[in-house]
């Protein structure tokens, strides 16, 4: 039997950070980590590889679409192969698999797939469905994105990330909103994967969930841009800041490496928010992946080339 943990959460919620720390701390050991990126080129698998190898786990990337729809066949194949591998070998203990979905995935479709497939149903049990919610921007997403509310509603465990940056009472209010959507899930706050309990605010501050039928049809696409060595950090940072401000609902996510004159930086943005850049781990390709909603990728690339000329042609 294989125990599976499904890790989900919107783009930039902090899934990979939480999972990397979870792998480091996991006492039982994980055999396989399946990482799904919506973009054609994954960044998460490269970031997770170090933590996974420390934990003795293999990393299997599935890129270029969501596990719940476009790439559900790929997930099925990977899990079947893992089951086959365990059947052939002398497994001393139950297997453990962690599946990190893309930010746009609908986890309930994956759980349905696990339940519908006769091989998976017999050989794999879903131990926990963890949903990571951004501790700062999560409330905005819950108010305005139906898909994020759906993710939270099916969770066994909800992790509120970036707890260190939250202001007084903010996480508790977010926890109350989550509690309103999911009455039973375990709630924890997390700072770089280190967890602590969080108690929902009582009485809860009311939220109006207002996106039902009112937002334009989403048109989510991704693109990758290679940045030249010696890209000006000032040019890229100013462009990213103005983009995130002008289009917080359309530039859903950016993640990748900026090879500045002073070193390679891992730079990420989630909606209107930019995370603290950190030195890039080795083994990650230079390039930036963008997930866009109702923005033409060509227009984004043109804008980047115009405002960040040092990034090269």
């Amino acid at each position, binding site marked *: 039997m294989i125990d599976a943990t499904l890790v989900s959460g919107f783009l930039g919620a902090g899934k990979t950070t939480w999972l990397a720390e979870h792998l480091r701390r996991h006492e039982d050991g994980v055999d396989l980590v399946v990482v799904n990126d919506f973009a054609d080129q994954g960044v998460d698998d490269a970031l997770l590889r170090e933590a996974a190898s420390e934990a003795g786990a293999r990393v299997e990337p599935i890129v270029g679409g969501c596990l719940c729809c476009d790439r559900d066949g790929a997930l099925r194949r990977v899990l079947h192969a893992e089951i086959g591998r365990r059947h052939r070998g002398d497994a001393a203990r139950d297997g453990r698999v962690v599946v990190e979905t893309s930010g746009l995935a609908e986890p309930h479709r994956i759980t349905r797939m696990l339940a519908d497939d006769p091989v998976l149903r017999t050989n794999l049990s879903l131990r926990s469905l963890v949903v990571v919610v951004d501790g700062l921007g999560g409330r905005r997403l819950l108010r305005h994105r139906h898909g994020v509310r759906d993710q939270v509603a099916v969770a066994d465990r909800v992790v509120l990330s970036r707890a260190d940056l939250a202001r007084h009472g903010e996480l508790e209010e977010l926890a109350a909103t989550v509690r309103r959507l999911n009455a039973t899930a375990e709630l924890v706050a997390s700072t770089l994967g280190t967890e602590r309990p969080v108690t929902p605010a009582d009485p809860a501050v009311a939220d109006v969930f207002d996106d039902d039928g009112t937002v334009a049809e989403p048109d989510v696409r991704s693109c990758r841009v290679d940045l030249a060595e010696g890209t000006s950090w000032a*040019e890229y940072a100013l462009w990213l800041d103005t983009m995130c401000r002008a289009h917080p609902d359309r530039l859903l996510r950016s993640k990748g490496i900026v090879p500045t004159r002073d070193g390679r930086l891992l730079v990420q943005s989630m909606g209107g928010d930019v995370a603290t850049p950190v030195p890039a781990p080795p083994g990650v390709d230079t390039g930036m992946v963008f997930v866009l909603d109702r923005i033409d990728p060509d227009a984004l690339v043109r804008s980047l080339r115009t405002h960040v000329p040092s990034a090269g042609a």
Partner: protein
Amino acid sequence: MCAQCRAPGSRIDWYAAGAPDTLAGRRTARTELAAVATRQLAPLGLRVDAHPGSMTLAVRSATGRTVVVTRLDELADAVRALTGRSVDPLEPRR
């Protein structure tokens, strides 16, 4: 913007976090930011100066009105205060 939600924006000085953590590195980063911002904001009639010896940036309009900022994410608010407009990088440059 939704009345329930705060304005989007960062709570950390992430631009400074990406620059080298030395006095010279911080100075260079500030000077470069001023030069790049001046290029970007020229169509709005604004100029950004980084005075030697000071760790702030001065955003100036053509009439001399000045707003002093200390971080990259404060630039956008300064531009709005001085011109009532904001920059959209997806709009073609004039």
